[in-house]
């Protein structure tokens, strides 16, 4: 166990790995909660100030469905090619927990006569250049519970604090079939799903905790384990990797994996047993008597269909067609709405799609990845990005300097002009200045000079040293020219 090769095998796609996901997406673009008029921009606000008698579940209050939430859910359903039923129902899911104001959650159900807002459906991902269809079981609407917070850690805190600002926020639960075969597929699926949802304009996945995920994972023939509390897509991959190793190790050791619910501890990077099957809740689902069934007419569905914006797959095709960029690049650029928007906004300012695409693919994304942030979390604007490219065109900076300027733009949040001024990235075009550097290099590398006299090829080394000394700001053509002249002169002397 534990060698690099074995580890790699452990994560590779395999028919014996079965992964299914349950994703909870907050429809953050809704202005009000699912069943009351409270505002939804609760993040960073004083606890328990975004509440009313209804979302606090005070005695006597009743829910009223936010019609816009139904619109949004239908739109997601259409985008994921779910079947939209002609009638959908809310059900009560009963269990006790202090973050639930009513001690039941108004949700939907696909059994006991329940019909959720979307049935079936699928998402296509691309893995190893192959298209793969991930089938969905259903999508359904439900209310988010409140949030429990502890003073310090959960174990050391003397008491638990409850904030109901989040209670009643609209959640769309998306449930997949166990069609995913590796942690990486799971991450790619989630990325695609998020891009679709963001393209629809129903949610902003970059908001903290706005997309949460539970995962079911098993090795064929073994018991299914549910992993809860996964709060980011990167964590999904890590949690599944951990769980896969754990289950494979158990299998290798001849231990039967227990059917249970486990909790992902992001800090420690491990899963911990939460409860076994016997301790599972009996949720006692039954139809919510305070709400009436929702009739979804064909006209309603058509109206939503006509409002549907461009989806990532269509956008990808358009990028390939209109901007003449490689399919792979177009796929990466449309893997996030923010990134695709960034790309197209740049094009509006600077009509060189290929150059922009190359810079995004080769530099921008690498830097963002290093910093573990997304494009909309960085301060770099399309204007700044394009200005930097224009400085290359005008000769103000070299391509090589530009790479450093971009890194500083991302890291320090400064506009390119400022970085160029402060750090002297401005290109040196003055022959007299460059000649001084050339003279210095000739003194420092006499052997290279001799080599160059014999063969022009060695001039490249000398010119490289000048570029290094000037941190890439010296004009390469002028530099080469000056070195060549000087070498030619030495050749004459030697003759």
């Amino acid at each position, binding site marked *: 166990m534990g060698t690099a090769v074995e580890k790699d095998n452990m994560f590779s796609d395999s028919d014996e790995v079965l992964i299914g996901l349950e994703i909870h997406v907050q429809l953050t673009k809704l202005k009000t909660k699912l069943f009351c008029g409270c505002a939804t921009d609760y993040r960073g606000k004083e606890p328990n100030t975004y509440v009313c*008698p209804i979302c606090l*579940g005070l*005695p*006597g209050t009743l829910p009223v469905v936010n019609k816009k939430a139904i619109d949004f859910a239908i739109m997601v359903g259409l985008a994921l090619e779910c079947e939209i039923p002609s009638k959908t129902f809310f059900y009560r899911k009963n269990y006790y927990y202090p973050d639930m104001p009513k*001690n*039941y959650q108004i949700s939907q159900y696909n059994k006991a006569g329940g019909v959720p807002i979307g049935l079936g459906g699928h998402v296509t991902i691309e893995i190893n250049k192959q298209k793969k269809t991930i089938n969905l079981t259903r999508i359904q609407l439900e209310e988010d519970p409140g949030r429990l917070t502890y003073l310090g850690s959960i174990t050391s805190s003397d008491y638990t604090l409850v904030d109901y600002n989040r209670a009643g926020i609209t959640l769309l639960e998306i449930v997949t079939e166990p069609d995913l075969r590796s942690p990486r597929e799971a991450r790619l699926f989630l990325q695609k799903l998020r891009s679709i949802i963001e393209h629809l304009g129903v949610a902003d996945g970059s908001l903290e905790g706005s997309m949460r995920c539970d995962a079911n994972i098993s090795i064929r023939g073994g018991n299914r384990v549910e992993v809860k509390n996964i709060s980011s897509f990167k964590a999904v991959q890590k949690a599944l990797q951990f769980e896969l190793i754990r289950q494979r190790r158990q299998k290798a050791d001849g231990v039967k994996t227990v059917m249970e619910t486990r909790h992902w501890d992001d800090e420690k990077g491990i899963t911990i047993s939460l409860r076994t099957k016997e301790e599972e809740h009996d949720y*006692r689902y*039954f139809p919510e008597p305070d709400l009436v069934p929702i009739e979804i007419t064909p006209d309603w569905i058509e109206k939503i269909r006509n409002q549907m914006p461009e989806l990532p797959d269509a956008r990808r095709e358009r990028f390939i067609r209109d901007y003449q960029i490689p399919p792979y690049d177009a796929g990466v650029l449309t893997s996030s709405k923010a990134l695709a928007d960034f790309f197209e906004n740049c094009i509006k300012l600077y009509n060189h799609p290929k150059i922009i695409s190359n810079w995004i693919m080769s530099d921008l994304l690498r830097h963002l990845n290093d910093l573990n942030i997304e494009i909309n979390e960085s301060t770099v604007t399309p204007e700044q990005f394009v200005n930097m490219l224009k400085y290359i065109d005008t000769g103000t900076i070299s391509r090589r300097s530009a790479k450093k300027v971009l890194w500083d733009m991302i890291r320090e949040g400064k506009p390119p002009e400022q970085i160029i001024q402060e750090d002297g990235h401005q290109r040196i075009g003055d022959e007299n200045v460059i000649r001084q550097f050339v003279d210095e290099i000739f003194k420092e590398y006499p052997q290279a000079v001799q080599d160059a006299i014999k063969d022009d090829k060695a001039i490249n080394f000398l010119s490289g040293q000048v570029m290094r000394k000037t941190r890439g700001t010296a004009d390469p053509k002028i530099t080469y020219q000056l070195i060549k002249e000087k070498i030619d002169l030495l050749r004459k002397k030697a003759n």
Partner: protein
Amino acid sequence: MASFYELTAYELHSMLQNGDITAEELIYSLFDRIQKTETKIKAYITLLKENAINQARLLDKKLRNSNFFGILAGIPIAIKDNICTKNIRTTCSSKMLDNYVPPYNATVIERILAEGGIIIGKTNMDEFAMGTTTESSYYQITHNPWSLEHVPGGSSGGSAAAVAADETILALGSDTGGSIRCPASFCNITGIKVSYGSISRYGLISYACSLEQIGPLTKDVRDCALLLNVLVGRDPYDSTTLNRPKIDFLATLDEDIKGLRIGIPKEFMGTGTAEAVSKAVWNAVHLLESFGVTYDEISIPLIDYAVPCYYIIAMSEASSNLARYDGIRYGYRVEKDEGEWNEIFAEDRLAFGPEVRRRIMLGTYALSAGYYDMYYLKALKVRTLLRNQFEAQFKSYDIILGPTMPTTPFKIGEMISDPLAMYRTDIDTVAANVTGLPAISIPCGFSDGLPIGLQLIGNSLQEELLLRVAYKFQQETDYHKKKPPIGG
């Protein structure tokens, strides 16, 4: 001349309008009466004398200085203590909500206030409206004004007793399985449960959402119609309310009832029905016959299953509705800060009385995995079939008639130790809740000085017809005008 407190809202409305009496005088008259009789009756949990007087004074001023004259202007009204009143304690007669003060008004309260009604107090009830006698209240036992040893019926016993004892002019109750009609019958007053979805439930503390409606408890049919004019209507805060066109229930009271057809299901006149009750009901039928109404004895077989069907649905919903009472956000909280939250809240929930606990446990059981199909789902099927059977009869009959309760009021304590026997007495009332049909109870006689109630069930949204028949009956009888012998 009768004292002010003895009059009906309809009568007082014109007196107030003509300036024959002020709202303040009426309130004082009423509180004098309450002072004399309330110690015997114990109808109220909270009395709002000062509030009411202030409100009456403000209203008198408003009546003098403006054109305002709301339907209920200056009319005192008592509210069952499961209907939320802003800044006024609302207990559901439970230790659990002993200290609970809602921050909002129920929709019906907003409607009453907008029409100038004056809330004079919150009335006693069975805990969380679970009962037929008002004996399960955490606070007190309410006594029947007709005989203090007898129960007023339930669960809206406080509201009914207050109306019967002239301790209010109007009252609101709620009816989940007969909780308006049963006490109306036992206290010799008029009470109606409207078609499901006609009156907003927003602010009614839920017992069983799919069955219950708020409704009036009044001295006569005319007051019932008057109060319905205020209460009925769509509420955007209650998705289950219907978009009914605006109806003036007073306008059609006088219309002729000749030619109406009445069906009397034998299931309503079964062996559990006291002889005096069935005699009074038949007398009522014959009286109606003399007004040109025809009748047939019919059968609606599934009525026999209405009680188990009702209790399964009601208890199942209750087990979920009452889950929120955990002492974390409001309500009873044990004096204990250490321990796991679920241990603490389990102790908090001991604040529920035995009947409430019983229904929560049975409802939890009925919804549990493996039992859901057997109980809850089956009850829903019976519900649909029962509604079909009623609907079939409404093709031939305008009204289904029977007693409201199979007996006259029980003695206090008589039923408390035998819940099943108590549940069985709901035989005549629960069908209207299970089917969502409107039903009215009006006085139709006495036995040994104890009142008997007549129940009329109408087809969906046929309240006008029920009121018209009931009004005609009251035009020709004086049972409803009889006053209980409590003196004062």
